């Protein structure tokens, strides 16, 4: 589905200009005491949320910047922030 993404530098652009960089999994785990399990979690494992997720993008065919957005995977629409669950 068509997707529009807000690049922090270039503004709203067609999603095909961007490269998806994966779900946001927090900082890279520390090398010290790193186990295959923690590395695997960081490198491969996904939450596969059907809803709003925080994710990385790179403006590949543009300015090249890496940034995060929140997007609803059910609608492909960018949203302002995480889903509010009361």
């Amino acid at each position, binding site marked *: *589905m*068509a*997707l529009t993404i807000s690049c922090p530098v270039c503004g709203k652009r067609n*999603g*095909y200009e961007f*490269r*998806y960089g*994966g779900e946001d999994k927090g900082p890279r785990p520390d090398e010290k005491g790193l186990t*295959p*399990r923690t590395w*695997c*979690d960081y490198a*491969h*494992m*996904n*939450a*596969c*949320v*059907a809803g709003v997720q925080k994710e990385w993008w790179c403006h590949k065919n543009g300015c090249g910047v890496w940034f995060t957005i929140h997007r609803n*995977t*059910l*609608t*492909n629409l960018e949203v302002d922030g995480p889903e509010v669950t009361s």
Partner: protein
Amino acid sequence: MFQRFRPLWGKRPHLNSSYDAVIIGGGLHSLATAYFLAKEQGMSNVAVIEQRFIGFGGAGRNTAIVRANQRTQENVPLYKEALELWPILTKELDYNLMFNNCGNLNLMHSEAAMNAARMNVCTAQFHGVESHLLDPKQLKEVEPTINTSPDITYPVHGAMFHPPGGVIRHDAVVWGLAKGAARHGVHIHQQTEATAILTDGGKITGVETTRGRISAPRVLVSAGGYSAGIINRMLGIKLPISVLTIQAMVTQPLKPVLNHVVSSGMYHAYANQTLKGEIATGAHMDPWPNYTTLTTAHYIKHQAEALSEFLPFLRGVKFMRHWAGLADMTPDMAPIMDGNDPIEGFYMNCGWGYFGFKSCTATGRHMAAFMAKGECPERLKPFGLKRYENHRLMGETAALVTYTPDN
């Protein structure tokens, strides 16, 4: 024709409060597993629970292509078994699955691609699967509609020909397996959504559904593209999966003209003529995870451009329908089938990407043995989830077309 509506697989069963096994998802892998559990493993007190209707997901959205020319020695035998099961199941289920083994042609557009195909052919032949290479002249004889002239964007250098593959009517497989499973006592519950998987002390105890609680010592999540989300939401187990929308379309019906399933990695398109005469074609996957199953104009344009080059007889033919489904991609392009780890009685069968259809019957058979005996059959052992942690990813990424959102 004007009789009262009644599902082919019998009356709507009563939802029992307990089953020997509950299978979440009403697609082909689930129905096949249920069928073989009841038929071959003597476990017929089984419920298949489906949120919408059986065959709603990938089972009814795929382009019905079957083949066994994958890349690795772990994968090929599984698909070979599945391919050999179609004629047997047609008889066994007493249902015409419309298997048409017209053969698959994978076009190669460079010498490097021909070398890669050569290795694929070797793997296939080693496992007793018929597969061989064709040069452009032989290809033209086999499939005269293909453009082998050198003046297209990606000229054809040859092809990998896999005669035993072909197409099969996917809805018939859904209905046939549902009918077969129900005949052996399996309960198929449509419009029944699983809301929670219940565990106690590291063991599965049942499933919470929108129609009440079911207690069961075994639960299989085999819900196609929805599996990874379900498993994470209900059990907190994350999987190395990205769920992408994949699109397909059909043209208006034509007289018989295309005799094989033709695919091209370079043009990123495949096409086959259905028994109704439509050219079914697809391949585009959204490069970002989503559950929308929406289609794009972007892809209609791509497909029209690609097909009019390598299948020029399609120039001017109109697309009639366009749809999409979900593909749950793993980093190594191979599925995840595992069980009893870390929760006893919990089984999963997912990560099939866009090749879950062609493998459903053989997988269902092995998963049924796995669930009944509690021990992983040899054939499924290489597909465990631990392979990612152990850095034993499969070489299936060397197949002819590879994509995940990570590349």
